[in-house]
């Protein structure tokens, strides 16, 4: 039986180590040997610090915690997680930006060893005679984690969730207004009220139409819009004009710094849309007060347009998601969360790129690069 257990232990794909209280290695299984490219017996009795200094360093604080308190929650990290995922669905606003989900305490979620990323679980491996022996099981997540990171960045995973919830929310509210006002009309005889309700229905229908239009601009272009060589300065200026419509110009300074001569080849409406959205966004971020700086320059094979605002900036945890559809931090009715998403779609369509830099309290800079000849 002992032989069987040992074989199982040696052959499970997860890495298993047992340490003594001084972080000396007492046992490792084959998975660890394979990872370190050595035979398992070479590790028996060796101090972890000699085997892998970086790993030793990352484990040290966790060890100290366990030594201080053998009941420390990191001894049960895994089990708690299982429980949490099996039955504990947590009610939360589906569109609220999700906070980074970490362990309840400040322990790291994963450990890194030889470039791979592992979730981990400490366990009590003591024989019960008072000697502290600490077991550690590592489960490799590198591939899943990379995949997840890539998907989150391109906006596919969380983007899709947000998209579905966003569509539901954005559509169902005006739909409710439409059905509700229609029902009110059915019960109403006063012509004034009926007209007022009909007006509401028209307003809500337009709102839905706008969302649909935003979404289809998000899908493929219609194909009948012709690309033209466009003067960038003219486009930027008219985009500023459009963006300023909703704001008080007395409270705003617009700095223009254009050093662009080359025309850009694009569908005029689309190019204008890119900048109108960016400018409106910047102005909203500043609450309509502050300085909007627009810098346009040549980059050799294309142009770069930097849009800088003096607004409240974007919190780091939102930065990777601001281009996702329906992701918005604006209040209800102020933004559908499609503006920046459309911008990115269009910029990519022309073979360009968009980047954002921001620090909370220091405004944000959006840099758009566009090639001048997009064949």
């Amino acid at each position, binding site marked *: 039986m002992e032989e069987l257990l040992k074989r199982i232990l040696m052959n499970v794909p997860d890495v298993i180590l047992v340490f003594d209280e001084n972080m000396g290695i007492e046992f490792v299984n084959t998975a660890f040997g394979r990872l370190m490219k050595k035979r398992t017996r070479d590790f028996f009795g060796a101090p972890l610090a000699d085997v892998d200094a970086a790993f030793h360093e990352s484990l040290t604080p966790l060890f100290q915690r366990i030594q201080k308190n053998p009941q420390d929650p990191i001894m049960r990290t895994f089990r708690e997680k299982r429980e949490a995922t099996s039955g504990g*669905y947590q009610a939360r606003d589906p569109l*609220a930006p999700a906070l980074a989900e970490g362990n309840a305490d400040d322990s790291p979620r994963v450990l890194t060893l030889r470039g791979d990323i592992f979730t981990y679980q400490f366990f009590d491996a003591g024989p019960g005679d008072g000697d502290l022996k600490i077991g550690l099981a590592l489960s490799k997540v590198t591939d899943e984690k990379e995949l997840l990171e890539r998907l989150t960045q391109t906006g596919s995973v969380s983007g899709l969730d947000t998209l579905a*919830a966003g569509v539901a*929310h954005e559509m169902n509210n005006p*739909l*409710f*207004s439409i059905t*509700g006002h229609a*029902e009110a009309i059915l019960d109403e005889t006063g012509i004034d009220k009926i007209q007022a309700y009909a007006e509401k229905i028209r307003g809500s229908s337009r709102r839905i139409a706008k969302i649909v239009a935003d979404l289809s601009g998000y899908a493929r272009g219609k194909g009948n819009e012709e690309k033209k060589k466009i003067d960038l300065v003219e486009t930027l200026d008219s985009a500023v004009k459009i963006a300023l419509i909703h704001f008080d110009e007395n409270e705003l300074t617009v700095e223009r710094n254009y050093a662009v001569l080359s025309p850009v080849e694009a569908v005029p409406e689309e190019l204008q849309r890119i900048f109108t959205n960016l400018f409106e966004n910047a102005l909203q971020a500043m609450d309509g007060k502050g300085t909007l700086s627009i810098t346009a320059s040549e980059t050799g094979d294309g142009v770069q347009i930097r849009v800088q605002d003096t607004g409240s900036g974007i919190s780091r945890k939102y930065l990777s998601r601001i281009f996702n559809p329906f992701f918005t931090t604006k209040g209800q*009715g102020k933004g559908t969360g499609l503006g920046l998403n459309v911008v990115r779609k269009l910029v990519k369509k022309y073979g360009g790129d968009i980047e954002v830099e921001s620090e909370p309290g220091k405004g944000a800079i959006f840099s758009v690069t566009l090639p001048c000849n997009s064949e």
Partner: protein
Amino acid sequence: MGIIDKVSGVHGKIMIIEDEEEVREILKLHLESAGYEVIEAEDGEKAIEKMKEGSNLLRVGLIITDIRMPKINGVEAIEYLREHAPSKPIMVVTGYPDTDLAISLMQKGVKEYLVKPVEKEKLLEKVKAVLAEEQNFDYV
């Protein structure tokens, strides 16, 4: 609603927590057409404030809330309300057809989970049913 209820004020008011004016308006239209008195709040924070005003804590007989709102959102507001006014029944009217969310909210004590666009008849039927239930007073 009978005259007795009106006088006794037990089921006097329905509080609507909803950030979108249009939606608030519809809920109000529907509810008022059935004779209910309505107070409105744009978000959870305002709802909690209003709840503390005057006799509202006593007179509000039902709370209808959305989930997604600025400041204190619906889920947080529900948790707060369940804690501070545990006897008030809560109904959720939201744009999300989400079974997990619905179940989880029901477990938190939410009586109904209706998805917009909910029809007037259904809304009033549910409101009536919830109000007809004996209020489960928790004497904390």
